[in-house]
């Protein structure tokens, strides 16, 4: 492979990985009937905590773990309102994004004032076959989620809860417990995706640095028709589009920079317009369940 092509492949992988990670988590949550537009905020929370822990410990592993926990903690807050209080998931997801934006901004400005100077977060280097550990994590997650959802009792329970919560309940499935677990898993994956941003893609934290990646991951779940392999394929397609866009920018092409930056959002809209109506969504998506009923 010539160096130009190799660079493009690597850039594609780099940009696709956080999208794939977040999308796999959202896939599980949606399969269990939880529509979580708050993954954007969970990703941002994961990014900030990974940055803070990374800077203070210098350990990629600790930073990643902390990012995952931060995503799961925000997901727990979301679940408390949506599952316990049965509040509307869309409204709560939007609130969670606002909360993450405000909380990470507050903490960042209080804990890392500019006069201290900017320390970089530690970076995850190459690993097996020179691949970044986050790429391997995304691959493992894709295979694992696919296998568990399709072939195991746990996966069956998750799908049953998303399709027919009442029927699953009648069969003895603990609906709320499954939904809690799936939401937490989704938040953890979003946190991991956020950690990837800080520990691999950029070595620092910037307020609002997720810039819609969580929303693109949401769209990817639809784009992939709720199938892990296709979702990963979609993530690669988006990664490639972004990589090509950066390259065009670097070449100083006569397309205004701001118009190029629209690519991922426009691409998502076009893809949704083409495919959304063909996708069969879980029947009980975003429908509340109460064992009292």
């Amino acid at each position, binding site marked *: 492979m010539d160096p130009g092509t190799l660079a493009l492949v690597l850039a594609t992988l780099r940009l696709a990985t956080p999208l794939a990670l977040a999308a796999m988590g959202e896939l599980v949550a949606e399969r269990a009937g939880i529509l979580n537009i708050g993954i954007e905020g969970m990703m941002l929370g994961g990014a900030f905590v990974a940055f803070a822990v990374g800077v203070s410990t210098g350990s990629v592993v600790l930073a990643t773990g902390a990012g995952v926990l931060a995503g799961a903690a925000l997901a727990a807050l979301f679940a408390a309102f949506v599952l316990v209080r*049965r509040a509307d998931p*869309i409204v709560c997801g939007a*609130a969670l994004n606002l909360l993450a934006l405000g909380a990470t901004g507050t903490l960042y400005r209080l804990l890392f004032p500019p006069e201290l100077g900017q320390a970089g977060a530690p970076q995850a280097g190459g690993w097996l076959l020179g691949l970044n550990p986050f790429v391997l994590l995304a691959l493992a997650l894709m295979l694992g989620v696919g296998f568990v959802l399709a072939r195991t009792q746990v996966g069956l329970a998750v799908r049953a809860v998303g399709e027919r919560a009442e029927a699953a309940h009648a069969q003895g499935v603990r609906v709320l417990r499954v939904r809690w677990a799936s939401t937490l898993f989704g938040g953890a994956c979003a946190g991991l995706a956020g950690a990837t941003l800080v520990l691999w893609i950029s070595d620092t934290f910037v307020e609002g640095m997720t810039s819609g990646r969580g*929303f693109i991951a949401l769209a990817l779940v639809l784009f992939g028709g709720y199938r892990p392999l296709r979702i990963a394929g979609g993530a690669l397609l988006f990664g490639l589009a972004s990589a090509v866009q950066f390259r065009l920018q670097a070449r100083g092409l006569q397309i205004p920079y701001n118009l190029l930056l629209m690519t991922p*959002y426009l691409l998502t809209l076009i893809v949704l317009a083409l495919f959304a109506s063909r996708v069969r969504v879980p029947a009980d998506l975003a429908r*509340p369940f109460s064992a009292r009923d």
Partner: protein
Amino acid sequence: MSRWRDGLEPLAAIAIALAVVSLLLLALGADPLRALGALASGAFGDRLAWTTTVLRMCPLALVGLGVAVAFRCGVWNIGGEGQLYLGALAATAVATRLAADAPAILLLPLLVIGGATAGALWAGIAAVLRVRRGVSEVLSTILLNFVALLLVAYAVHGPLQEVTHAYPQSGAFPDAARLGFLPGAGRVHTGLVLALLLPAAVWFGLFRTAAGLRLRAVGLAPEAARYAGIRPEREVVVALLLSGGLAGLAGALEVSGVTGRLFENLSSGYGFTAIAVALLARLHPLGVLPAALFFAALSTGSGAMQRVAHVPSVTVQVIEALVIFLSASFALPRRGD
């Protein structure tokens, strides 16, 4: 639900949100009383403070009103921010390019209508995508926000940039394109009248007309509405157009009445705060006004809070988020109940 609870629960939500944030600030080593004191005096302390608060109430009330209308119809318009920017963009195009030489009597209505239309059309994209292509408006309106912001960035670096091409902003509006000030109210522009009257008009439309009943029926029970002969798709389109139009209007008033130019970061997140406004108002068109005043005060006071108490201004977003959580889970009628 009784009337006094309608008024009491939002106040309780505010009190709880402020208490939680105070505790968090305490844990971070900041002084919450000092911060809240600075916030209050920054929002209402002197003439400049309260006129700024009233100025910020204007877009929040209009976009919040739009969000409330959409939510009443079961449409999750998260795209107020983008629709506001499109309104500002269209108004700027009218005022500095298309009709820059027109007299005020023509120019002002043109840019206000242009702004509202642009906002409505921007939301209309989401409406068409939902009705024709089955795309959830939640995702499309969010994605359109990003596109709108970049479109404005492109415009102020390109076709609408001021003549010297030194700054990323549009040229100044001609005097004929500037809204006048209200007598005795400092920099508060006449657009405030619209922000005060439109909630009443929307209240009348929603609760006293057949069209309003149809729109609300779709939000309460779309299938039942269909059996009653209402076409939910049509109501969804109406709600989104109205919602986007109000946001676009807010954008036009902002450039014409406040800034006199278009630039990036014009809005400071009005479109997102508007969701908090609508929910705190319990989706009631008239409740939007006090709710908008509250969030406008938070926004105006946050600068003083940062200067005086060294608490970052973005902390008010945490308060907004908590108010949304609390309103959504305790005050609103929940699905499935």
